[in-house]
């Protein structure tokens, strides 16, 4: 699997993503500085977490308009897998690769903790390592993770099986109390129509090492490597 992690000024989970991918798949991704306008031949592009450009104005807004994102968009159009984690998800929505917007958490506070997610679909290269309906534990760490889209968009996401993860309780119910940020319909991650772009607020790369407290994030990278090798 040929993968790359995009590094923006202010990215801070770029190394974490590279470490997790290397650890789980044995393939080390290339680190690509945002000013490199050309992307090499790739199977997977990761847009990592962090605070690109300080997350000033709106999270992800300035990174979304940087030249490298045009190249990422072009790759995505050709079917290259693109994974946006946390700030990466915000960048992908701002860049128009995914619908909706990520707004300030309902609590208005930054929140860092493990949450439970129900895997909504195993029909993608990102989620085929899980079973639909499975409950996994993955951390969130964000200030702006409240997923918003209008009702029509939300309906379409559901009709097209493009909701990848929902915040849920231990029984797998997408309960209000299990929603850490006020996301519409408890949505934690979504796919594009081609199912080759996934954006999610939780950080699978943070729980892919037993010493860090769990490995529920690992199946995502394993499945990607299997599909893309």
């Amino acid at each position, binding site marked *: 699997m040929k993968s790359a992690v995009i590094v923006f*000024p*202010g990215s*801070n*989970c770029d*190394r*974490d993503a590279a*470490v*997790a991918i290397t650890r789980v798949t044995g393939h080390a991704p290339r680190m690509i500085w945002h000013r490199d306008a050309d992307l090499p031949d790739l199977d997977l592009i990761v847009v990592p*977490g*962090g*605070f690109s*450009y*300080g*997350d*000033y104005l709106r999270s992800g807004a300035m990174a979304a308009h940087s030249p490298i994102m045009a190249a990422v968009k072009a790759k995505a159009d050709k079917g290259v897998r693109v994974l946006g984690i946390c700030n990466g998800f915000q960048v992908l929505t701002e860049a128009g690769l995914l619908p909706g917007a990520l707004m300030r958490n309902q609590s208005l*506070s*930054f*929140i*860092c*903790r493990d949450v439970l997610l129900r895997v909504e679909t195993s029909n993608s290269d990102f989620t085929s390592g899980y079973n639909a309906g499975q409950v996994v534990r993955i*951390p969130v*760490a964000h*200030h702006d993770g409240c997923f918003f889209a209008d009702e029509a968009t939300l309906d379409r996401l559901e009709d097209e099986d493009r909701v990848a993860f929902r915040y849920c309780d231990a029984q797998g119910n997408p309960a209000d109390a299990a929603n850490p940020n006020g996301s519409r319909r408890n949505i934690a991650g979504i796919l594009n129509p081609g199912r080759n772009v996934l954006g999610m607020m939780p*950080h699978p*790369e*943070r729980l892919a*090492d037993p*010493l*860090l*407290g769990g490995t529920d994030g690992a199946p995502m990278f394993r499945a990607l490597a299997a599909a893309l090798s």
Partner: protein
Amino acid sequence: MSEPAITPEIVAEHGLSPDEYDRVLSIMGRAPNITELGIFSVMWSEHCSYKSSKKWLKTLPTKAPWVICGPGENAGVVDIGDGQAAIFKMESHNHPSFIEPYQGAATGVGGILRDVFTMGARPVANLNALRFGAPDHPKTRHLVAGVVAGIGGYGNCVGVPTVGGEVEFHPSYNGNILVNAMTIGIADTDKIFYSEASGVGNPVVYVGSKTGRDGIHGATMASAEFSEDSEEKRPTVQVGDPFTEKLLIEACLELMATDAIVAIQDMGAAGLTSSSFEMASKGGLGVEIDLDRVPVRETGMTPYEIMLSESQERMLMVLEPGKEDVAKAVFDKWELDFSIIGRLTDTGRMVLTMGGKTVADLPIDPLAQAAPEYDRPWTPGKKLPEIAAAEVPERPWGEALLTLVGGPQGSSRRWVWEQYDHMVMGDTVGRPGGDAALVRIHGTKKGLAATSDVTPRYVVADAHQGGRQAVAEAWRNLTAVGATPLAITDNMNFGNPERPAIMGQFVEAIKGMGEACIALDFPVVSGNVSLYNETNGEAILPTPTIGAIGLMPDVEQSVGIGFAAPGQALLLIGPEGSWLGQSWYLAQVANRAEGAPPPVDLAAERRNGDFVRGLIRVGKVSACHDLSDGGLLVAVAEMAMASGIGADVSAQGPHLHAALFGEDQGRYVLAADEAEAAGILAAAAAAGVPARRLGTTGGDALSVNGKDAVKVADLTAAHQGWFPAFMG
């Protein structure tokens, strides 16, 4: 542009006494101009010169075979093997945080990060020790919310995990909160950078953000007693830009990987003045700076303003000749300002020019050497009586326990640390909520344990014992996760040192700390002093915060506080509980903040701790927690809540409340497989360590001597509930 004349009022406004001003005149051989006066003022402020504290700080032990660099540089450096060093320091941002909690706390984090990466270390962990006024004081909630958001806002954005700290409430902090921030970084031992300038003619380079009129006089503000009219001084608050700091970290580390840098120093308190002054002074050189070349973000800035500005996210470097282009390319890549503002000279003077004219010209060494140093009068604290357990009324233990774990002091700080990204960088093995946080050293199996501790109510009751206890507790917290304690940084927060009783607290606390450092092989490698923490004559509790780190050779061997399983043997290491003076129980259950605090037997502390660490390292222990605030039962309850598993414990002694809630020092609770218990007790007997079987884990409740069970779920609800309810 006409400059103000130097009147006695202006001298006084600059915090210089008439005596000190006479010294200025004799050093200069003439009256200083306003810029020169400003430079004297900040260089001789308490904050920069440590004039009240230096005499006593010098008495602290600072050496050990593993200490690479002790106090005197931007941060302390200790060897952690394999060619790596840990670099760390703690610093206060008390006054700014009271005036503007978000920005004050945020810029405190920014400042301490710079102290650490200035030396070549990548920051890997932040801690924060916070002290607020009474929960019901009208300002407290606002301050808690702002400070926590500010620490998170800065640390989260720069991408350094905030892994530990402390939060306490006490009315003495009503008008003067404490915000002590600590950063730990990792560097290669052959790539450590110092601030001593060398090489006459070498370029002096300014990098980072532009200079504005921020925080002019911040350093003098931090050295003057607080009064209600300091609201007037508001514009001195600085705004932090964590995004720029993140770029500055990356750019500095990238440049440090080359051989372009001779010396480097962050611009902290007193900005360009103290950074340029200290670099030149350490190297015994002079410096020439052209102020027209300093990047500014406002028009019409005077030399005085440029020299005294405390704009954040700036650094000063001396480069190897000919490396200017290499360095500039790195800072261009990270889109940061870069400007060659001057050069080193052999004159021993600081010469500033602007618009082609000399605007200041002062001798460096005489100024540094003549910095005032005081032996302030001090009086020892009064010894308080020991409180006999028999005279403290006894309440049902279950009720007392719920009060303690569900109250302002004992409740979980989850509300706080969940606002901090404590996992970024992917190496947080021990998250907040345990004794010490544990951060793996990237790419290795080693880890650094980190904690911050002090018990101010003990220090105010007996500063000498309190000083010993603060160091001992930090040592114990590191030990409890299995780490070998290495060294400490201290943040001495006290009231007005011109009052002999306050100075006495300072002196006695230092003596106690020093004794503990020696007994525990735990040297002081960096620190910070914050005096004049008073409002309208009311001093804070003396608060010598101890930040400490320890080394874990293999993070897989570490243990947490949660019970691993039901059916485990519980053991008490150390003496039985007996001491209720200054305890949580006495204060919160009996409503009496009285008596002498528990004494610290340093030999026993060391023996018991070494024994516990040894057991953890050989895998005989499945959970461990040190005993501190609230004593035995609070510790066991915390272990139960961390795992959701109950326990039954046996308590002995004439007074059940003293046995359960006494705060005797040097103690731990261990959980171990049943099969290990007898062996551990035998080993303890052989090592002369007091130890006994305490009980067994299991069930969903806590009971004492098989009676009066309290459900773990009820404890947890109280423990987790207080903080969110308080903050609304």
